[in-house]
């Protein structure tokens, strides 16, 4: 199937700072594609390039299998970095401009998207009177206008309260169920973990990994074990067969197993048979955050 967006060897530098270094990946149609990375990793630069705001000196990209153009951008609902609207115009007037430029939607749709983001009551207020969260909501409304098949959202929950964050997360899930392709940059891993089907992780402009979320961020089983004689416990667990990895932290031993293979009963029995009485045995779920820190810090050296 034709990928919605395909990047080939995109590089970009600001003077001596390499913002993006030879980045290539495909965004499959219908995916919720999360672009992750710490601050300054190149997420917004990447989205700016695919929206033709920045020029990439090397590399190329295609939308819907074709070279990017004004026409292809019209089909994409986008929110880039900050909500960009005319301060002296109301929400409705601003969205009329969005509508007129993109050709997406009509007057009725403007009210509908304002309803979706809970701004309908304030549609006649000037943009300059909005709070940060309301500005963000209007930007999301602008992206949703005319029900585009592709959405590019840069930190969509920026400035929103917890209720707003949950609403946007649900909205993204709903849109995904309707078959929309959503490309989303975020440093909020929790957000990504809950909605994304695919991820790409950037660090200092380098693409560390990209692909299906279950393959990239494969979660391991972690079992924490402790005993009175921690050295002896460590020695015998070094020999424990099905583990992939052992880590000692203070008075706790962490055992890593491939997903779904940790067996607490068996570990308990194994230690007991070798004369060690366990005083703690606990299975932990590894968070995406730990995994993310692992991936991004592994490349430090």
């Amino acid at each position, binding site marked *: 199937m034709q990928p919605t967006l395909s990047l080939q060897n995109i590089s970009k530098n600001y003077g001596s700072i390499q913002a993006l270094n030879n980045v290539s990946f495909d965004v499959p149609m219908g995916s919720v594609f999360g672009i992750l990375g710490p601050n300054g990793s190149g997420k917004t630069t990447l989205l700016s390039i695919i929206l033709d*705001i920045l020029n990439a000196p090397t590399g190329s990209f295609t939308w819907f299998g074709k070279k990017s153009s004004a026409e292809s951008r019209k089909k994409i609902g986008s929110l880039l970095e900050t909500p960009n609207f005319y301060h002296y*115009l109301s929400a409705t007037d601003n969205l009329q401009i969005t509508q007129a430029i993109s050709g997406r939607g009509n007057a009725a749709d403007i009210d509908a998207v304002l309803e979706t983001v809970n701004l309908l009551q304030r549609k006649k207020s000037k943009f300059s009177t909005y709070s940060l969260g309301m500005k963000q909501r209007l930007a999301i409304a602008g992206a949703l206008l005319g029900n585009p098949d592709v959405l590019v959202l840069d930190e969509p929950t920026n400035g929103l309260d917890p209720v707003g964050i949950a609403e946007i997360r649900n909205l993204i899930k709903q849109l995904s169920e309707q078959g929309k392709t959503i490309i989303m940059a975020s440093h909020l891993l929790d957000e990504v973990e809950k909605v994304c089907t695919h991820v790409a992780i950037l660090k200092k402009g380098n693409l560390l990994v990209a692909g299906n979320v279950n393959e990239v961020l494969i979660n391991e089983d972690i079992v924490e074990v402790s005993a009175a004689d921690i050295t002896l416990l460590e020695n015998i667990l070094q020999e424990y067969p099905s583990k992939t990895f052992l880590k000692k932290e203070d008075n706790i031993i962490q055992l890593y197993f491939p997903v779904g293979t940790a067996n607490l009963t068996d570990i308990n029995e194994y230690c007991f048979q070798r004369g060690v009485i366990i005083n703690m045995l606990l299975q932990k779920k590894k968070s995406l955050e730990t995994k993310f820190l692992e991936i991004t810090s592994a490349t430090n050296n």
Partner: protein
Amino acid sequence: MLQLLKIEWLKIKKYPAFWWMLAIVALTYPGINYMFHSIYENIISRKDMAGNVAKFILGNPFAFPDAWHSVAYFSSFFVIVPALLIIMLVTNEYTYKTHRQNIIDGWSRNQFIHAKMMDVMIISIIVTVSYSVVAAVFGFYFSDAVHATRWAEELQYIVLFFLHTFAQLSWAFLLAFIFRKAFISLGVFVFYSIIIENIIKAYFRFKEWSSSEFLPLEISNRLLPMPNFLGKINAASNEAYKKALDNINWHILYTIIITSAIWWLCYFLNKKRDL
């Protein structure tokens, strides 16, 4: 094109500074012309010979057909008013980052400049219409029966006024497009047009070089030469005035060249630079 115009109108129609500009133009154009009409009245009301000679030689500069020229010259002083509006309209796009949003939403980079050029065009037309109305009213008011029939002579000043306005607003646009910040652009525009270019002109005169006519604003300023009733009433001054009138045709050409170059530069830079 019509679509671009419609979108620019959505941006402008609720922008308070636009209506302020119209109000200021509506007040200043009749005001400045009335003021200079009073100066003219003072000259001819002198009881000595010079007053009579002036009246005889000059005719009434505010009667037809000279009204078109005189009113154009005095009104052109206030090109700074629409220029401020142009600078605000352009720098607003950069301040609010809507220049990015317009592209994101589906304009090409060229369309952004097309749209802005239309703004400059439309505002030039509005200002030109205001000038034409003021000139027509002054002309009919101050013309006697004979002069009134000559209203259609010198209508070319409407075109010259438009060209002058469009050229100078294009210059204002270029500054706003390059500096992006309202205060810097306004500062550079005002400082350059009122002080720098005049200093350069004075220096050129002092050195007796002739090429000050090619300064960016002077090129189009010479489309509307100073009416001769403001000069000394003598043969040399009359000669210089005739020469200035003869040079208008060349300055039409120069103005078109420099204005085209300005817009070409804007298209070129906008394509190349990061937004």
